[in-house]
Each structure stands twice: as C-alpha cells, then as structure tokens.
C-alpha cells in the first residue's frame, strides 16, 4: 500500500468513525433533543408530571376563550389526533391565532390542563402573498384553512378563519 493510499484510508476511517459515533450518540439522546411533546404523547402518558414541559400543536379553531378582564386565555392545541387544553396568562406572540402552530411551556395539572408560563408561536414553512393564501383558504386548502378536531374537513367553513 502506498503512503497515499494509506492516507486515503485514514481519512475515510476518520469520517466513518465520527459518523458512527455521532449516529450512536444522537440515537441515544434523541429523546432529549425533542423541543416539545405532541398532544398524542401527552395522552399516552409519555410526558412527565410535575415537571416543566413543552407541548406543541395547532390551536383548535373556535377553542380560544379570553377573559375580558385580564390577560388570561384558555385554548386547545391538537396534533390532529389528540387535544390538550392550555391555560395561560400573559402576552401572546403576534402570530398566535386559530390554526397556528404554537408551543406552550408549563406544568400539566391534575385535570390534564397545561398551566403555561410561556407560549411561543411556531410559524410554518409556507411563504406566499396574502391573496394566494386567501384563494387557497376559499377552497378549504392551504395554511389558512381552519383546524377542527373530530370534524369532517368538508364541513369546514372558510369564513370561520377570517379574523
């Protein structure tokens, strides 16, 4: 084997070794790299009680109840399979609205309600002019289409998404 071939082999060995180590490490700590739990994971009991956790999902259309006298707000988030109720007191991010992906951080109380101390908005990966989004929503498609739980999507009224 020439020195050059030996060096080639060595370089590949470094790459292979590091890739293997990273794969093993990442699969081992994968659980801890989750930024938030989904409502399905909450329903399955995978979320530790009495600990600060983050739960992410879409805000269910029509579920937002604001207290007119304070900043208190209650709403539900869903991953289209299960629902988690969230209670929060404070200023919500600009993007917070029905159908929006959000992440709430807090503790889940005995009634299964997430008592959130922080709510972050998770904007989606779609970028389009407002007219295009409105046209899509009229057809019941696109990011502005309403998010309903246990409802036939055909029943979704596009008008209900209008603020």
């Amino acid at each position: 084997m020439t020195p050059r071939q030996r060096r080639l082999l060595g370089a590949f060995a470094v790459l292979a070794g590091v890739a293997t180590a990273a794969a093993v490490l990442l699969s081992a700590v994968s659980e801890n790299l989750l930024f938030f739990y989904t409502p399905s994971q909450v329903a399955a009991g995978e979320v530790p009680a009495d600990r600060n956790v983050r739960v992410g999902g879409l805000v269910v259309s029509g579920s937002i109840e604001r207290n007119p006298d304070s900043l208190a707000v209650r709403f539900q988030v869903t991953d289209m399979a299960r629902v988690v109720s969230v209670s929060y007191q404070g200023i919500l991010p600009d993007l917070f609205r029905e159908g929006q992906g959000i992440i709430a951080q807090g503790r889940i109380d005995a009634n299964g309600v997430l008592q959130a101390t922080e709510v972050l908005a998770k904007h989606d990966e779609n970028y389009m002019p407002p007219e295009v989004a409105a046209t899509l929503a009229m057809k019941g498609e696109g990011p502005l289409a309403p998010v309903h739980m246990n409802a036939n999507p055909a029943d979704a009224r596009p008008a209900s998404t209008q603020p």
Partner: protein
Amino acid sequence: MHLMHAILSPKGFNRFVSRWIGALWAVTLLMLVIGLPWALVVAPTDYQQGESYRIIFLHVPSAWLSLMGYTMLAGLGFVVLVWRVKLAEVMAEAIAPVGAAFTLLALVTGSLWGRPMWGTYWVWDARLTSELVLLFLYLGWMALSQAIEDRRAAAKACGVLALIGVVDIPIVHFSVEWWNTLHQGPTITRLDRPAMHLSMLAPLLWMYFALFTYAATVSLMRARDIWLEREANHPWVAELMRTGAVPGGPDSPARPGPPIAPRDLTAGA
C-alpha cells in the same frame, strides 16, 4: 496539464485571481443592486408574517453558505490529508473566516426574526443549537490554524478537525425533520415542490447566488493574499513587489497597504 499548472501554482493563481477579481466584484455588485430592491421592495408581503419575513432574503442564503463553507473546509481538508495539495490548504484558510461570518449572520438574523415571530430571541432547539455548534467549529478551526506555526502542519491538523466537524452539517440540515423543533421545517429543499410562492422564491435564489458570488470573490482575494504571504521570500513575490503589482516593494508608489514584515523587504533587495 499546462493550464492546470498555470492556475494551481502560486504564481499562476496570483495572476488568475488578479485578472478576474475586478469582474467578480462587478458581478457581485450588479447582483446585489438588482437583488436587494427585488427582495426588500418588489417581492410581495407574506400572508402570515407581513413585511417581517423579508429578513429571510438574508437569513436563508447566510445559513446555506454557512453549511456550504464548512462542507468545503472538510472537502479541502480531505484533499490536504490525502494528496497534500497546497492550493487546498490555502483555499481552506481563505474560506474559514468567510464561512464563520455567514454562520454568525445566520444566527443573528434568525434571532432578530425569532423575537417578533416566535416570541423569543433564542431557544435551545436542535436547529438553533446545531447551527451555534457550527459557529464554534469554525472558530475552533481558525484557532487551531493560528496555533500551529508551520503552515503545512496546521493544514493537516485542521483537515482532521474539519473531517470530524463535518458531521454537524447533516445534523443542522435534518434537525428540523428528525426532532420537534421551534424552527419550522424545510421550505425549499423538500421532496415535493417548494412551499414558497415563486414571486418570493425567485428573489431568494437570486440573493443566494449574489451572496455566493460575494463569498467566492472575498475567498479568492484572501487566498491570493495568503499565498503571497506564505511565499513572501520567493523570487516571484519579490518581482511583483518590485514592479509595484504588490504593495511593499522598494519602488512601489506610496499607497495604503498592510505593514510589511522586514524580511519581505529584504527579499526584494
């Protein structure tokens, strides 16, 4: 073979870069002059984020360049380790700070974007954390390069570091698919069509190519200077200084330039 040598040799590289650098700057400026108004004024507002989304035209190209820069560091490191090509050593040294700058830019623009949209400047989710790790990988590479006096030994050590660090690149890219993150999923590099309207996608790609051209231009200039510095004691550099093509020669007209080490001057005498 002759053409290869004409570009790959230090002298040929110097001539090649010096000849084309003006044109590259012209292309860079032209692309920015077209791209910036297109991105910041002409492109439509976003249905959800309004005008704020326009920072994407800086954020996404910066992030792409940060990934590309380190991938190139690793590729050049591989070439250095196996074939000992000097041009690869010099190019890696030239690219590293440029890539680091774009990594920092991606982090800062992302942070400024996150505050109004997400409600926070920073979260430790997988995408943001792995991109921050990438910045440290760049800084580590540069620190290691500076710590070793012998340039060839430094290039070898840095090559190994880049080969180890490159594992972060797929992690940055796939982090939004492998784990739940606050950062949204891929918009453009996904299997079905991009989730971005063409009227926004076109200026985004344009801005990417504009900033890529800028990064390439700056990197080539840096590579030229690094090679001049490395070969300061060689006759061809002394000849360039004597003719005034490179500042620092005894006959060169007075003009602002970096201070020249004494040995550079004696090389021209």
